[in-house]
């Protein structure tokens, strides 16, 4: 041992490994970018005309599609984490003087990066479809902030799910609820148009304030209440995910 290992340097080394994985497996990125765009084309181009939301549908749907893009990208993280755990490589890292957290942080950071790429693609396609946001530069910064925060929080939760799942297949399936949640939020239609039970669920589930925060920012009139709820949800989910992930990681020898 030449020098004492530090968690930060270990994380950077692990991130480099995760980056190489992502580059070697372009299908994952392609899939993470392509699927949300297809959903977008369907909602905006096909169904959107029939929805009455009081504004251009592409303007209404883009914030929700950003969240959709993030939640869809998580499946790849859950399977990658689980795959890591079922291969011998993780035990090699565990018997080395490597920071325990670093093995997981790499996955969370790469998830965030992938989500940012998918969101950038969504915004690009939105502009091509006539998206006309009123956001200022500062609002855009807020949008990026929310996207990063949500990706980070959902990333930790997904890493925990991936660790807890017994097989790669079940790890992939475990993120399906996260993909379904945006449909049961104000992502595609306002809550008022839903049936009572679903409306209540939509109003109180975490994705709604996050989507409303993004919507406010993109419209140029961010709402403080939604933003506070969004940040609280993200911090809470990140904390829950982190604690769950680290304890599961320690249990799985």
């Amino acid at each position, binding site marked *: 041992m030449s020098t004492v*290992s530090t968690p930060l340097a270990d994380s950077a*080394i692990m991130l480099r490994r995760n980056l*190489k994985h992502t580059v070697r497996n372009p299908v994952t990125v392609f899939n993470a970018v392509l699927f949300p765009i297809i959903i977008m084309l369907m909602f905006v181009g096909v169904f959107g005309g029939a929805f009455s939301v009081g504004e251009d549908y592409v303007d209404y749907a883009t914030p929700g599609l950003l969240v959709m893009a993030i939640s869809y990208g998580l499946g790849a993280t859950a399977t990658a984490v689980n795959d890591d755990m079922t291969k011998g490589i993780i035990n090699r890292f565990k018997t080395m003087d490597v920071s325990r957290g670093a093995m997981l942080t790499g996955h969370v950071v790469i998830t965030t990066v992938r989500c940012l790429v998918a969101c950038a693609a969504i915004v690009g396609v939105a502009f091509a479809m006539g998206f006309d946001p009123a956001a200022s530069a500062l609002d855009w910064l807020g949008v990026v902030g929310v996207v990063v925060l949500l990706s980070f929080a959902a990333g930790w939760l997904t890493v925990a799910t991936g660790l807890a799942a017994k097989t790669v297949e079940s790890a992939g399936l475990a993120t399906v609820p996260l993909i379904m949640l945006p449909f049961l939020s104000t992502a595609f239609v306002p809550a008022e148009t839903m049936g009572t039970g679903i409306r209540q669920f939509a109003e109180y589930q975490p994705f709604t304030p996050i989507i409303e925060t993004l919507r406010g920012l993109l419209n140029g009139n961010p709402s403080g209440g939604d933003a506070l709820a969004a940040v609280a949800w993200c911090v809470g989910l990140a904390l829950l995910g982190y604690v769950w992930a680290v304890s599961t990681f320690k249990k799985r020898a």
Partner: protein
Amino acid sequence: MRSSAIAVSGLRKAYGDKVVLDGIDFDVAAGSVFSLLGPNGAGKTTTVNVLTTLMKADAGTVRVAGYDVAAETRQVRGAIGVTGQFAAVDELLTGRENLQLMADLKRVRDGGRLVTGLLERFDLAGSADKQASTYSGGMRRKLDLAMTLVGSPQVIFLDEPTTGLDPRSRRTMWGIVRELVAEGATIFLTTQYLEEADQLADRIAVLNQGRLVAQGTPEELKGQIPGTHVRFRFADLAGLDAAARVLLEATRDDEELTLSVPGDGGTRSVRALLDRLDAHGLDAEEFSVQRPDLDDVFLALTDQPAGVQNTSKEAIAQ
């Protein structure tokens, strides 16, 4: 006396109420090869997991490279290298990248040169820049071992390192282990191949149902069971009966239709035996000289019903 690289005393481990290790003690001298033998489920991998800090012991003390695994875990991790039962390589990375990853994590200076050196030493230079997923089983094992050696660990754990390798790759692996010992490393080896332990180990311990049932050099262990004997196999029971009346000192096995006669297996004593059979017009289907090997020791020590060891032992040895 040389210093201990591994010192284990009173090691216990249970999963729920299933006791896996029931108080084991052993000592491994620095610079030697120690082999842990045992049937499947005897607790070999659990022992490796405790010694390599993957698992906590329920009781007992374990010191590796002079450090206590429970209290000085990080120091232990800094001193050991582990090659587990399943190749621990990153399949999406190339051979070179896998080794570089280890060099980075261990903060090895001049990692590039070390990596190139290891690739050459393990005969992987030609495939260095191909992804490990394209490697054959033998190449993966070699890469795995090469990764373990990055940073020159003092104590190297090899958990069934040659399981699933062809005979040539196995011999290559043995050569590498001998080189490592020559360079001063201590090797802790588990294996199911007794020949492997016989070839490599300075000392062997046999683990059975969570206890060490024997410890010693390969020669000491072989000395624990009956020596060389000559074995005749007969075509039928009648032949066996007739021969048993002639060779009174033999032990018979009705199932295998064999007679085993203790003897040194030299030409003179064998000829004498054959002459005795010939004199009675008896004809054995085949005969062989059986020397005790570690297989016999292993089966004798790990067989639960002590009475039947001869039959089952030789049946399995086929």
